Every structure is written in C-alpha cells, then in structure tokens.
C-alpha cells in the first residue's frame, strides 16, 4: 500500500515543505509574540493552511490541464502586473501590492511560477525547438516581458530571481554553452564595471576568454564580446554620471557592512544574532537579538537569523540540509520526468526556490547584498508562502506524472 502511494505521492517534497513551514511558523512566533505583531503569526498559520490545501490540489490536477492552462495563468498574472504598476499601492518603495477589498497579494510571486510554466509549455510544443533562433527569442520574450514589469515596480530581487530561473531553464532546455555564456558575460561585466575599472577589465578579459573558448563562429563571438563590452562601458559611464548619493547606494548595496547604521545595520545585527547563537542556540524564545527586536521586521526577510540565534548551528544546519534536499529533489524530479513540460517546469521551480534560499540566507549571513527576497516557506507573507507551496505542489504533480510522456 505504502509503496503504491510512494509511486504516486511525492512524500519527500511534501514532508520537507511541511517541516520548513512548521519551523518557519515557530520562528515567526518567536519574532513576533511579545510585541504587537502577534497577529502576524496567526495570519501566517491561516496562510499555511490555505497553502497546504492549494499545494495538495495542485499536486493532483491532471498534468495536461496545467500545461494547457499555463498561458492563461501567464497572461492573467501579466495583466495584474500591469494593473499593479498603474494603480497598485506602494509598499516599501515599490509598487508590488495588489489588493481588492481587504484581500491583497503580491502578483509577482505568482508571475514567477506562471512564467516558468508558460516557458516550459511553449518549449514542449512539438514544433518548437530551442535551437531555432526564432523560438529562442520567443522563449526569451516570455521571460523578459514580466521581468521588465517587475523591474519597473521596482523589485530588483524578484527580477534577479527571474533571471536565476531563466538560466538553468535555458541550460536544461539544451541551449548551447555559447549562448548561455553570451547572456551571462554582459551581466558579469556590468557588475565588474560597478566595482571599478580594474574589476571591469579583469571580468571583460575572463569573459572574452570564455566566449572565445565556447565560440561557435567568429562573427557570433565578436558580436557577443562587443555587446558585453558595450554594456560594461555604458554602466561605467552611467556610474560616473550618477550623483554621489546614488553611487553610495550602489556601493552600500554591494557592500552593506560599510554603512553600519544605515543599510548595513540589519546585516550587522543579523550576523550578531546568528553568531551569538553558537552550537545549540539560545533556546526557543530566548534569543536576545530576536526578542529585543534588534532587526526590524525580522519575521520577513531576516527570519533565518531567528533560527540561527535560537536554535544555533544545530537547528540552522538542519534547515540548510532540508533546503538542499528540496533543491536536489527538484533537480531529480526534472531529471526523472519523462515529459518535457514537467521536466522544464521542475527545473524552473528549482531555480526559483534555490535562488531565494541562497540569496536570502547568504544575505542574513552577510555574504550577499541586501535584496528584499523572502526565505521560502519560512518568511512571513501570504503570497510568497502560497506561491511557494503551489510550486511544491507542482513538483509533487510532476513526480506523480513523471512516467507520462
């Protein structure tokens, strides 16, 4: 009986997800219980309940139906993104909140999934091949359209996530190494240009060598290198023409700890919280950094430091392992899925979740710039939790239907 269930029900994804949600609820409880934010905990419990139902429903919808509805889903979220941009309310400086009556959400959380599904759906059409430039361009446009809308909100974090999902998707879909590198190199060159001329030159040379190594023909190589250099140079010129405060914003973004009282404050406090947790942590509800509210709105993007402080290395490494297991499981689902739609979607979903995890935890530990990205399943926030649980539901679905062609 159980082996039969195991054949069609993805226990691993489901249980990992539930474990993370429960640990996340505990962390949110700890971060909010004694201040006037305890309501957040109960709201999150409610969202988790809804999420669980949505996840299970998603897991059992016929795969074909999902594939067929992909574009509908995609265009709906796309439309909502436009509406949000026009009439949406501004939360923390970006127009990303969509609400009707008392209910609202962040459509960009759902747009990520929708885009991945649409992309996978397009590429899994029998007459579509990624090796055709025309199809590649269409596939890229499917990604680029919502990405630009989200960038315009502006929500840099989600834009980065889009990009981080796109690269493995293209890679998985079989795009040549050269094209992948030709997409990647200008971005790295632009980053190098922001860091300084020396970095710009080093990255450009390395990028050039990579492009040359993977070159398909000389013309393509020259075009790709030209684009990379043009992007890098224009970024550098733009940077030099910026106001000092804008430049400072960028340097603080790249190195938050340089500004200990401003943008770096959260990172400094977050590192203190995690570091002071030690091996076994200070105990549930006993983290001083958490309980004394040293990190503003810790229950959102900095939820990982509650974990680090109160449960220590033991607790945090268990959670890291759960996340790693989920990522690898996503990859496995993509690998064993015999249908192209499920396989590509699984890769996209894995890319989205993994990017969130790495950037969020890296940020809490002072390894990454402070980008407003929630930690999947754990950070407070209804839209993200439900969207993430939908993604796990999809993974479960692809697992169950992995033998379907």
């Amino acid at each position, binding site marked *: 009986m159980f082996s039969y269930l195991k054949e069609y029900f993805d226990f691993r994804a489901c249980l990992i997800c539930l474990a993370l949600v429960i640990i996340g609820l505990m962390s949110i409880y700890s971060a909010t219980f004694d201040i006037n934010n305890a309501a957040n905990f109960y709201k999150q419990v409610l969202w988790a309940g809804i999420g669980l139902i949505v996840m299970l429903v998603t897991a059992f919808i016929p795969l074909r139906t999902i594939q067929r509805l992909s574009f509908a889903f995609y265009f709906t979220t796309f439309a909502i993104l436009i509406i949000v941009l026009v009439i949406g309310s501004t939360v923390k400086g970006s127009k990303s909140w969509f609400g009707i009556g008392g209910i609202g959400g962040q459509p960009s959380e759902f747009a990520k999934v929708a885009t991945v599904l649409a992309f996978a759906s397009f590429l899994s059409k029998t007459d579509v091949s990624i090796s055709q430039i025309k199809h590649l361009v269409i596939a890229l446009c499917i990604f680029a359209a919502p990405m630009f809308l989200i960038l315009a909100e502006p929500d840099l974090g989600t834009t980065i996530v889009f990009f981080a999902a796109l690269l493995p998707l293209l890679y998985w879909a079989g795009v040549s190494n050269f094209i992948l590198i030709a997409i990647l190199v200008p971005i790295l060159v632009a980053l190098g240009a922001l860091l300084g001329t020396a970095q710009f030159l080093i990255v450009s040379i390395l990028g050039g060598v990579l492009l040359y190594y993977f070159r398909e023909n000389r013309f393509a190589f020259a075009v790709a290198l030209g684009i990379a250099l043009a992007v890098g140079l224009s970024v550098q010129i733009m940077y030099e023409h910026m106001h000092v405060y804008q430049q400072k914003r960028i340097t603080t973004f790249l190195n938050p700890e340089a500004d200990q009282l401003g943008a770096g404050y959260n990172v400094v406090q977050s590192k203190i919280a995690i*570091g*002071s947790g030690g091996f076994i942590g200070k105990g549930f509800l006993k983290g001083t950094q958490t309980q004394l509210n040293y990190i503003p709105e810790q229950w959102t993007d900095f939820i990982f430091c509650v974990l680090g402080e109160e449960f220590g290395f033991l607790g945090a490494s268990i959670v890291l392992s759960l996340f*790693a297991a989920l990522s690898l499981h996503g990859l496995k689902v993509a690998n064993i899925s015999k249908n192209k739609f499920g396989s590509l979607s699984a890769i996209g979903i894995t890319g989205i979740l993994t990017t969130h995890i790495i950037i969020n935890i890296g940020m809490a530990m002072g390894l990454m710039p402070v980008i407003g990205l929630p930690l999947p399943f754990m950070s407070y926030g209804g839209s993200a939790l439900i969207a993430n649980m939908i993604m796990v539901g999809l993974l479960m679905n692809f697992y169950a239907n992995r033998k379907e062609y």
Partner: protein
Amino acid sequence: MMNVEEIGTSSRKRVLTIIIISAFVFLLLRLFQLQLLYHTEFGKKSDENSVRTIVKEPVRGYMFDRNGKLVVDVGPAYSITVTPASFNTSTLSFLSSLLQMEPSVIQERLDRGIIYSRFSPVRVKRDVDFKTLAAVEENLYRLPGVTYEIESKRIYPYNVRAPHLLGYCKEITDAQLAKVGSAYQQGDIIGSSGLEASYETFLRGEKGFEFISVNSKGQLLGPLEGGRRDIPSKEGFDLNLSVDFGLQMLAESLMTNYRGALVAIDPNDGGVLAFVSKPDFDPSVFSGVMSVEVWNKLNTNPDKLLFNRATMTRYPPGSTFKMLIAAAALEEGIIDEHYRITCSGAFRFGNKVFKDMHVHGSVNVVEAIQRSCDVFFYQLVLKVGLDKLYEYGNKFGFGQLTSFDIGEETAGLIPSAEYYNRVYGKGKWTQGYIVSLGIGQGEVGVSPLQMARYAALLANGGTLLQPHAVNSIRNKRTNSLDIIDHKESSVGIDSSVMRLIREGMRRVVEAPGGTGGMARIQGIVSAGKTGTAQNPHGADHAWYIGFAPFDHPKIAIAVLLENAGMGGVKAAPIAGKVMQRYIFGELPLKANSDSSGVSLNGTTEHSFNTREQ
C-alpha cells in the same frame, strides 16, 4: 520522446547538482564560521546590544581627624541625566526651562556625550536642588531618556576649611581623562588637588554596575537575570588624618586677616597637626556644581585663593635660618660654645656694610640666637662657607621636596657655588654675596612646610621627618587599617650641638632679651625663633618657628605672615596660641591677663600682656 531526450542531459544534470551542492556547502561553511568560530565575539556583541549598563557611583571615602572626628563627609547629590539615544530633542526646550539652563548648554553637553556613547547617560546638571528635582520627576513621563541619578558630594561638617590640604574634587577634564584611562568617564568626579587628588585611588572606591535589559529602541525592560549579575559599587577607603581640626580651626581664625601660612607638626612622627594657607576659600564650593562665575572668581582673585602658600612658596627664611648656620659651624668644629664676636651694630665686608638692628656687644652662639644678632651670623656664615652651608641646608631638608602627601609643593632653593656660577657666571660673584645668607636673606627660598619640618628637627634633636597628613587608611572592604610608614632620618648632628642651639631657642622665648617672648605659653617652657624677612616688593615678611614643651616637644610650628612686619610681634603670638591650644586642649583665655609679671626688658618686642588683638 525525442524532445525529452534532448533536454536535461546527464552531464548538464551533473553540473547543476554540483552548483546546488557547492552553494549549500558554502552557506554551511559560513554558518560554521559565524556560529562556531566567531561565536565568542558575536556573543559578546549580542550581550552589549541587549544590556544597558547603569553605572553606580561609589561613595567616596571619608576623612577623620586625629581625634576620630569626621571632618570630610559625603552626602547625596542629585544629577539630572539624559541618554542621547532615547532623548526626544523636541523636549529640549521644556527640559531647559525645568532645569533653568540654556538649551544650547544642554545640547553641547549631549553632543560631547555622544562622542563616547549614545547609550550612556550624560549628566546635564549636577546637584540640583529639591525643587528642580521634584519638577523633573513629575515630568519624567514626558521626557524620554531623562532621568536622575544619585551621586555623592563632599560635605564639610563643622565648616571645616583647610582647602589647600584637603583639596577638592572636580568634574574630570578631557586632559585628565586622556591620562587616567578607562576607570573614568566623561562627567566623573575626580580629586583635583590636595589630599583628594593624591589619595584619589583610595578615596574613590569602585564603580558598581547594574545590568538592565534593553530593546532595540533603548527602552529599559528590567534587571537582567533578576539583578544577579549586578556588581555593587565599592565604597572608597577612609583617611585618618594627623590633623587636629580643633587646632586647625583656631589656626585658621588666627590667620584670618593675614596672607601667609601656618604649619604645625608633631615633632615625634612628622604628622601635620594644622595646615593653613591664607587667604583661602570654603572647599564646599567645589562639592556641588561650580558655576563658571564662582570658578573665575576663585581663579582670578588677586589674592590667589587657590595658591597653596604653605608648600608652593619660596620665602627667604630670615633670622630663623640662623640655627642652621650655627649647627653647621658647631658640628664642623669651626666654632665652639665659647666663641664670641663683638657686635657693633654693623659688619663691613669689602666696601659693603651689613647692618644689624642693635648693638649686641660681645655675644656667643647661644646669645646670638637668643637676641638674633646679625653681625655674629654675617661673620659665621663666611667661616662656614658656601659649600658647608649648602650641605647642611640639604641635610635639614631645604632645597628639596618634603614628600608631603599633597602633590602641590616646590623644592625651594639653597644656593651652591654652582648655582652662583650659573646665575652670575664663574668668577663674577664674591663672598659678599653669601654674607646675607647668614641671616636668611638673599638667594634662599623656603616654604612654611619646610620650616615646620625644620622646627620639628630642632625640637626632636636632629631627626628629619617626612611631614604627612594621613596616618592610616581604613580599607572598608576588609575593614583593615593600613598604617602608612613615613621616612625619617637623623641629620647626624651631635647632641651637644643640638643642646646649644635649643638652649638659644629657649632663651628666645623664655629669657629676657629674647626676641620671641610673645610666643610664650603660660605654664610650660617653649622655644622658638623669630624672623623678619626683607622683601623687595613691600613690607617685611614675619616668621616664627618654634616648638613646645621644651623638654619633650609635642608640637613644632612655623608661621609666616606676608608683609606683616616683625616676626616677633605678629607671628610669634599666633604660634604661641596654637601651641598652647594643642598642649592644653584649649586656649586658657585668662592666661593673657595674669602673665604680666614676666618682663621682657631689653627686647624689641612688646610685653607679653599687650598681645591682645
């Protein structure tokens, strides 16, 4: 099926697996680094973050006089403090009206405090009166970050003064702060002169700390771990002084109208019994808040109120110096007790005439001291010579610091040949320069404290003592008494020599023809020497040094009155009264009237019964 075949090749799966695994391993290593390798450092930071340390000021040590009387006490002082991190600047003007301070002054104090820490309270106003305290307390709820703390301040019962000895405490200056380091903070009180300064480390005690949990907004949440980690402040140690404050107050009142100094010493151990420098000030002006005006008044007073005339001055000793010259001459065998000189009222040396007040006729060394014959000593100092004079001067403690308890002291000057060479050039000075040294004039400078030690040395027969004001320190933590050892050394003068000199000094007071009769004490025999030091800037300085009782001295004294005239007239009676008070415990008022039987004919001094002020 074809499509599926071309996506997700196994090599690409491997690449993605490696990327995912290495990203998570990277995070895990960072976690390991933060939580295990840097745990101590971050743990400390986390403690500092969430715990506010409240400093509890220690109670400063007390001072008791030689009779066990509490003379320097402490009482509570309420200071209004503001913690910059939690202060709401919009309440600044309200606070300034409550404290009656300029907002800019408060702001300046806060700005200075922020340099050290935004979270440490800054004392905005010290020692506020109860009315102000009550007004602030009533409005505390409207003034976030404002509170008050109790500190101790000096209280002087009995209106004790002795400011130059006791010293005072002041808010620490930036320069002091840079020197003393971490035990002090801006706004702390530190002993800044006198005993308060030199015994600062004992008197101060140790700060205590209370640990209070604080949230990120700086709101106090209550004692950390129920106060178990609090460190109580430790009281400062008490000083037991050698000073007799009854005597001190009499001496101060006798000196009231003079500029000068009086130092009385116990010739048996060097303990200072009274220490007066006039004019002075009430030390309690320093104990609360001192306004700039009061400070300026003190500091710029033309009489130099803060200046310690007992230790920081270099007066010529005048005729009180004669015993030193006599001791050198006798000890070196240059003269003996039978050696005589005939005084004709002047001494010619080269083409210069050195005058005497009187024609003393033939005098030996004892008579020369008794009657203060200048001619005798003009000639004697030439026989002794500069080198021996310098040697004996140093033996008797001149030209060097006395190692008295307080830091404010100058060494004074005993000239040497080297000194004259330096000042006038080699060969450009003559023996004539040293003639006037015979009567304690010229290039010789002594402090009243050195003179009191000199008087004590003559009293005890040749022991140079370390004058001191603190006999012992009471360690209140162990309740043990730490008795301080003081240096003493014999000057190595033969007792027969000392006997002659003491006899001369006895006759100064007790015999007809002595210059110090006005220091006479009813009922006991005392000894002394008057001095009248010429002073190019004004009237003569009056000196008197002495000791009593003659046989077993209990007190030695030096009195100096600036520009007061004759030592025997002005200084001697004050010395006499102080010694009398010390020996008899009180001043027998009647003594003045029924002592008229003693006649002092042949002296320049007034008769004893006319010394009523």
